[in-house]
């Protein structure tokens, strides 16, 4: 089964190789989805939390807790459930690397 998975992900990667630094741009676009509430580049206007420059472990744990239901919120526990663990990890890395 694992072999098959690796075979298919190899195919997907091969399909994407024309797309220069595909993952980086994809993550940038995914992160921009958060900007509507948390500001362009993760720098929020008053009333919402900044994401830029927050430690990766803190952001990731918070999102995982929202996703698992361990932590509730008004909105974020509903939105976090829409992202895979891998996507949450990518988002946390992306925002941690931004300057605040």
């Amino acid at each position: 089964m694992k072999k098959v998975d690796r075979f298919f992900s190899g195919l997907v990667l091969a399909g994407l190789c024309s797309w220069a630094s595909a993952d980086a741009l994809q993550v940038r676009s995914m992160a921009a989805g958060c900007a509507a509430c948390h500001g362009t580049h993760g720098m929020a206007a008053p009333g919402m939390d900044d994401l830029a420059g927050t430690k990766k472990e803190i952001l990731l744990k918070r999102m995982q807790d929202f996703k698992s239901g361990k932590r509730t919120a008004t909105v974020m526990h509903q939105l976090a459930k829409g992202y895979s663990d891998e996507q949450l990890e990518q988002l946390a890395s992306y925002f941690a690397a931004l300057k605040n």
Partner: protein
Amino acid sequence: MGGGNGPKVVVVGGGFGGATAAKYVRMWSDYGISVTLVEPNASFLSCPLSNLVLSGVKTMDFITTPYDGLVKNHGVNVVHDSVTAIDADKRIVKLASGGELAYDRLILSPGVDFMWEALPGMAAAGAKDKVLHAWKAGPQTVALRKQLEAMPDGGVFAISVPLAPYRCPPGPYERACQVATYFAQAKPKSKVLILDANDDVISKGPLFKKAWAERYKGMIEYRGKHALSDVDVATNTLKFEFHEDLKANVLNVLPPMRAGAIAVQSGLATANKRWCEVDFLTYESKAAKNIHVLGDSMQSAPAMPKSGSMANQHGKTCAAAVVALLTGKTPNPSPIYTNTCYSFVSSKEAVHVASVHTYDPVKKTMVTVAGAGGVSTAANAVEGEYAYGWARNIWADSLV
């Protein structure tokens, strides 16, 4: 700015979709692609939160953002004009002032227009100044507030809701709450009637019904299955397909809607001649090459509302794709983004609906992620504060 030999993008419409696209094409091309934004209004006027102007909780200043941020921070060339025609072969748009703009890629975000032909009485002289929609924030918002102020106590405000899809699904129900908030304080004997062409409340239903029953008991009345057939403007009377005529002191008619006129007349509204079908990876029109359509004008994906929040997300997805296409790269094959939409049920308390949308490569459309999203458990003031936080942030993300 706007000159040089680099690629040229023209954006038509400076609402949530167009303004965001203009900013992000500039940013994500490292300011290498020139962007001209064509928008007739001097400033951006937010439809979200505009119902708070009707209740007197906020003024027009609060919902107004200048276009300066796009110009100063991002070098967008903002032209206050309207596009009257598109020449897709020559890749040129014609302006009302007589000029022309050439583009490599055109992004249309013209919002909605009203299907006035569905309501023949609204063609009468002066009808549109007397019976208001106030569904595009601006002078009509102010005028409707004035009508409410002039209405005697004990009067009736009647709002007519068209069949979905229309711009901002929860907007009419929020408006009923805001008008009732004003009445409760200034004209307590007055009534709010919601005449809805849909069978039932189509967004945040249980939350709105709870607000009407508990906060505005005896003041707000909801009637579903009330499809409007015409308006007798002289007598302030609504006419329905299957119900008796209804006269009220202040009428607020939301006509059926379709894509903005420039999209329809350019042959891009391929879905029922009302909405524009697009490729959800690029927002490129299915009817014309090099022309992208986003925001309320689009034929929406399943469970995707026509909202400012969604238009902002379309703007960014489209911007990324346009930059990729103009620089010889492949657009992102798997976009994912969220929608969050707040409605105020009183002067301070709000409710929300949220969803996560991702691309389905088999269905070739955006679908909601199962198990994610939801609505508020109850209206509260904390969500009211978050609603303002949301507004400040999305206005800045789109325009600053």
